[in-house]
């Protein structure tokens, strides 16, 4: 299919971001996305070509604004949706997702209580809490 993914010969993307001896992953979440995509159960119809196709079907603005592993996560999501292994409702609930516990715990209680008060309109700035 013709699409923005068919990039050979296009202009305007600038210099290649060459990095000598770069690591396999640059962020922990990239590492997890990749592992998740490898380890997940898939619908029977989903093979390598199917996964590639699901990325190619991304709306072009999303394709260009997402980083590589974000596209993989998108592909995983749409593939599982199309195979009805997850539902749209379940995925949409993810918009309310919170940062994982470990990271929430790292926020000092005092900060949390200040933020809570701020949100309730009980003080106007951090210093007055």
């Amino acid at each position, binding site marked *: 299919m013709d699409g923005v993914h068919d990039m*050979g010969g296009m*202009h305007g993307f600038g210099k*290649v971001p*060459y990095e000598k001896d770069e690591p396999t992953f640059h962020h922990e979440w990239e590492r997890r996305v*990749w592992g*998740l995509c490898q380890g997940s159960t898939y619908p029977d119809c989903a093979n390598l070509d199917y996964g590639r196709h699901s990325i190619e079907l991304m709306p072009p603005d999303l394709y260009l604004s997402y980083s590589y592993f*974000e596209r993989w996560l998108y592909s995983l999501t749409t593939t599982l949706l*199309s195979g009805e292994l997850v539902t749209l409702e379940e995925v949409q609930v*993810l918009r309310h*997702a919170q940062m994982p516990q470990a990271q929430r715990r790292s926020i000092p209680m005092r900060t949390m209580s200040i933020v809570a008060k701020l949100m309730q309109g009980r003080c106007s700035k951090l210093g007055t809490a």
Partner: protein
Amino acid sequence: MSKEHTHSDSLQYPDLAHLPSDPALRMKAMESLLVEKGLVKPETIDAYIEKFEHEIGPHNGARVVARAWVDAAFRERLLRNATGAVRELGFIGSQTTDVVAIENTPDVHNLVVCTLCSCYPWTLLGLPPSWYKSYAYRSRVVREPREVLKEFGVELGEDVEVRVWDSTAEVRYLVVPERPAGTEEMSEEALAAVVTRDSMIGAAKLEV
């Protein structure tokens, strides 16, 4: 509308626009959902990461190249049927079911790309570096390979032919770089240590 078309459209339109904008959060949420639904186990994810970050990598491809440098019969088999030749060294697996090896010479420099996505011989080279997957590399390297190579620090004479190989859905390319001068006395194992990932993509030349 054909069934196939309907199927494609159903993939295209899920409303995912309101997912968290932070990819780390999006990943965590998706992982939690899939674990909860029994579609994946966290330890399975860990195992894949461990394997591809530590076990599978360019040192595999480097063994193939070093063997080709020291063993003329293996080199011939590799250039004729790379899939079979790498299998001799035990390399069978992800994205290595149809391998083509191409040899750099003083007259020809080969360079590999996947303009459509990120196809790459995982079993031999591990996962591709970010620059290989970048829009700039994918778009430019088929149009101005000499310029891109120059940016990578590879200067080629005008008399050197540049061949760019665009990976297909199935075929994975492995560049056999030129054996550097001064390595005549080195063992196969020592030679393998000289071979870099980038040289097996064609993005670097080797020196010792």
